[in-house]
Structures are given as C-alpha cells and as structure tokens.
C-alpha cells in the first residue's frame, strides 16, 4: 500500500510540474503574441523624431493624445510618396462596409436557405448547387474579371460596389440550411394547422430560433468585411471612400524611415481595435461562428 501511495504522490508531483510548465509556456506565448501590438501602442505615444531616429522606447511617451488627434482629424501631413485621409473618415467607411457586408450576407442567406429547406419546387437542387459551388472560390482568385464587371456596371468607387459582390458566398447559406434542417417537422405541422403560411412561419418561428446563429455569423462576417484588402484596393480610388486597412498601408508607401510613424502607429491601433474588441467581447459567438461555418 505504501508503494501505491508513493506512486500516487509522484504522479501528483509530475502533474503539478507539468501544469507549471504549461502555465509558463502559455504566458510566454501570450507575451510573444501581444508584443507587436505593445510596440505599436507604445510607438503611437512618441513624437515623429524619436521613432524616425530609431530610438524605439519600450514604454509610453507623452505624445499619445496629439498623435491620435492628428490621425483622427487629418491623417498627418503625409510625405511625397504617401497618402493621407483622416482616420475618422476611414473608420466610418470600414464600419459601414463591414456592417453592410455582414447584414447583407446574413439576409440573403437566411432567405435562400429558407427557400431551399422549407419548399419543394422544380430547380431547388440546382439552385442549391449553384450557391454551393461558390464556396470554393474566394474573390481573390477571380479578382480581375470581377473588377471588369464592376467597371461595366459603373459600380467602382461606390459603397455598393465595395459591398454587394462580397455578399455572394455559400458559407452562410449552408450554415442556415443545416440549422433549418434541425427544426422539427412538428413545428411546421402545428403552424400549418393554425393556418400560418410560410411568411408567418419564417417571422414567428424560423427567425427567432436563428438568433444565436445570426449573432455568431455576424461576428465572423464583420471581421471578414472589416479586414478586406484587395477588393477595396482595386474598387476605390476616391479618397472619401478609403477604408482604414487600405488607407493605413497607403500611409506607409514603401516604408521610408521618414514617414510620420507616430501617426501611422496611432492609425494602426485604430484599424485593429474595432475587430479585436468584437472578438474579445463577443468571444462565445465568435467561437461558435468560427467552428460552425468552417465545418
């Protein structure tokens, strides 16, 4: 018996040691991942001279407020090779673009999934497959011909051109289809007996049941929309429609050390904060959305 106890104690010791190592490794991991953000945050509080000389401090400087104010109101003076738009304009554009893409995608996907699941009509499977195929091809692959279509439709430099083409995708439709298939047939039977039609059933049953799925999808799609890069880069050369992710890289140009790095770092913080906040604050929905759309 004594031997068993000694063995158990040894196992517990080993487990405790393993756990301590795990905590240490995780803490290092967290620090390594946060370090680039830390440096950007610190960089956004120093003046342009300090950063330009390369004396990057590891702790905050006194110029934070003015850097953020400059970025927000004018975007800085810019240089010959760089391009500035006030961050306030760019943030508004990004927020609008991300929200429109998310809402639009969810709306059209809800409707089409409802049609495919709750009706039987000729061409139902064809419609489903036409949508399903789009799962495979991200917009980047067919970017030039899609851009040409936009030119033909005179949609370049418009918010519609920025958002509508990105609403076509199969992931959201598939997710809602999966979910609608789990609604018991009895619900539909009961609704029919009460004399409710398809519109009423959608509004009073299917839609309220989908709320968590909609929330989860919204988080994923908002980030997807906010982080778009190649599409806005091609679609928009009107500075009033610039999004913050594209505008930020235009401020950098070729990465000269003479750039106004303090303003750039403040803009970078503003570009990454909204989607990061969405992920952190809506973590539960985010993980649900991520694991359910990608399977």
């Amino acid at each position, binding site marked *: 018996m004594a031997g068993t106890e000694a063995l158990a104690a040894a196992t517990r010791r080993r487990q405790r040691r393993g756990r301590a190592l795990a905590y240490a490794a995780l803490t290092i991991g967290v620090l390594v991942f946060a370090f680039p953000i830390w440096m950007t945050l610190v960089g956004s509080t120093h003046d342009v001279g300090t950063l330009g000389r390369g004396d990057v401090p590891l702790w905050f400087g006194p110029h934070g407020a003015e850097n953020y104010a400059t970025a927000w109101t004018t975007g800085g003076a810019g240089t010959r090779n760089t391009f500035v738009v006030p961050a306030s304009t760019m943030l508004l554009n990004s927020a609008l673009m991300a929200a429109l893409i998310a809402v639009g995608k969810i709306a059209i996907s809800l409707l*089409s999934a409802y049609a495919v699941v709750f009706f039987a009509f000729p061409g139902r499977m064809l419609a489903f497959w036409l*949508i399903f195929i789009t*799962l495979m091809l991200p917009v980047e*692959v067919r970017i030039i011909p899609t851009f040409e279509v936009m030119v033909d439709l005179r949609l370049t430099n418009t918010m519609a051109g920025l958002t509508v083409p990105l609403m076509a995708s199969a992931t959201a439709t598939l997710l809602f289809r999966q979910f609608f*298939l789990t609604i018991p047939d009895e619900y539909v039977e009961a609704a029919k007996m009460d004399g409710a039609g398809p519109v009423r059933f959608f509004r009073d049953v299917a839609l309220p049941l989908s709320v968590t799925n909609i929330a989860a999808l919204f988080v994923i799609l908002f980030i997807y929309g906010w982080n778009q890069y190649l599409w806005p880069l091609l679609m928009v050369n009107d500075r009033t429609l610039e999004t913050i*992710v594209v505008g930020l890289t235009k401020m950098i140009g070729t990465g000269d*050390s003479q750039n106004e790095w303090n303003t750039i770092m403040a803009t970078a913080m503003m*570009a990454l904060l909204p989607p990061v906040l969405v992920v952190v604050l809506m973590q539960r929905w985010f993980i649900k959305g991520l694991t359910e759309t990608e399977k």
Partner: protein
Amino acid sequence: MQKKVIFRGVALPVALLLPQLVITGIFFFWPAGQAIWSSFLREDAFGLSREFVWFENFADILTDPNYLAVAWNTAIFSAAVAVLAMGVALFLAVQADKAIRGATAYKTLLIWPYAVAPAVAAVLWLFLFHPQIGLFGRALNAAGIAWDYKINGGQAMTLVIIAAAWKQVSYNFIFFLAGLQSIPRNVLEAAAIDGARPTRRFWTIVFPLISPTTFFLLVVNLVYAFFDTFGIIHALTQGGPGLATTTLIYRVYVDGVQNLNFGSSAAQSVILMALVIAMTAVQFRFIERKVHY
C-alpha cells in the same frame, strides 16, 4: 435532405432565392466565365483586338521561368506558414488543455490576433523589423547581421512568413483546443495507468485522435497562405525584392492591374481556380473517410 412537411408554392421560394442567385450570377459566375473565356484570348500590343489562341496563354505561363519561380515561392511560403502556424498553435493548445484553471483567460489572450487584418499585421511587423527604425531590425544590424528585408530576398520571405503565421495561430489554436478537449479523459487515464509517459501518450493517442482536425486545418492554412496573405505581401514587400516574395495571387494582381496583361492574368486565375477546387475536393474526400481510422 428534405423535410417531410413543407410549404407549397413556386413563386415565393424563387423570390426568396433571387437575391442570392442574382448576386452570385453577376459577381461570381459571370466573372468566372469571363476569366475562362479570356484565358483563351490574346490582346494585340495596342489593345485593339483580341484573338483566340487556344491554350497558348497557359503554355506561355507554364514555361515561363518567372512563373515557375513564383509557384516555387508560393509552395515554400505556404508550407512554412502552415507548419509554423499549426505547430505553434498545437503546442499552445496542448498547454492550455493541461492548464485547467485559467484556460479561458489564456484562450481570450490568444485568439484576438485572428481579428487583425493581414495588412495591419504586416504594418505591426514592419515596425518591429524595419532596418532603420524597428526594434528588432536595428538589434539585428547592431549584432552584425546585415538585416534589410528590402534588399535581401530570404529575409523578406522570412518576415512575410512570420507575419502571416502570427495571425493564423489563433485560428488553429481554437480548433486544436476544441479537438483536444473532445478526447475522452478516461482514454488518457487508461494509458497513464498502463504507464505511458506524457510524450508517448501524446504521439500514440492524442495526435492520431486529432488528425482529422489537423488535416482540416492543413487545408485551411494552405488556402489562407495562398489567398488571404495578399495584404501582408502588398504592405510589406510588394512582392520584392525582385520576385522573392511574389506568390501566385500577387502575380495575378501584378499582371492584371499593373501590366494590364489580361489574357495571362485570366489564365493564371483559371489555374488558381482549379487549384482551389482540387484542394476543396480533397478535403471533402478525406473528411468523409475520417483520417484517423
């Protein structure tokens, strides 16, 4: 799959499907068709007429040493990003699975890089590795390593790989952690009682059980490295120096937007489409077969 109890009617479901079908038709099928069609055409030097040239665009691309170099870059870049992002994520997920208390807090602290746009990630890393103003860039130069990713192709590739992998680890971490947490505890306990050490338990039990997740993530990471990293490359290196960090998707952009070589750009798009379809098909097949049995 079909429900037993359904509503009648044709007009209503068609109307409900219409928005998505119209958008898909105009912005997906039409351009995809255009890409296929123009991949068989060639414009004359003045852009006045287009001639049907069969597979010449494809033949030209596939024999162009620059294109093959770019394809090789893409292979190196994607493999490195996938291995790095998945390796680090698996390591952290195993640690988080062990650490019972505070696992949620660590999860929160590790998942946020997912939300950072690739182009913004590039800016953050540029600020660290800039040869003149970056903390690490200067440190490397001070240590006698001539660091300048704008001149040295290998360094440029290293930097884009790090920036791309940094952003992708959080995604892999979420899936690995979910996979690890779904392994029944009693299986691991049984192995522990049989005297299997943690390392052995990991490679003989845990790793085979999460192989479907690993395979799924491998495909997702490769697709990410192929397509979603355009912003990183554009913001950090513009594909340079020379062609050192030009990937296939970056080259489509350069040929279509900067060189206005539509035939070649379209043919490259078609090659990429075939590649994505092949990857998706492989993924569906393997997922059906369940890798670990």
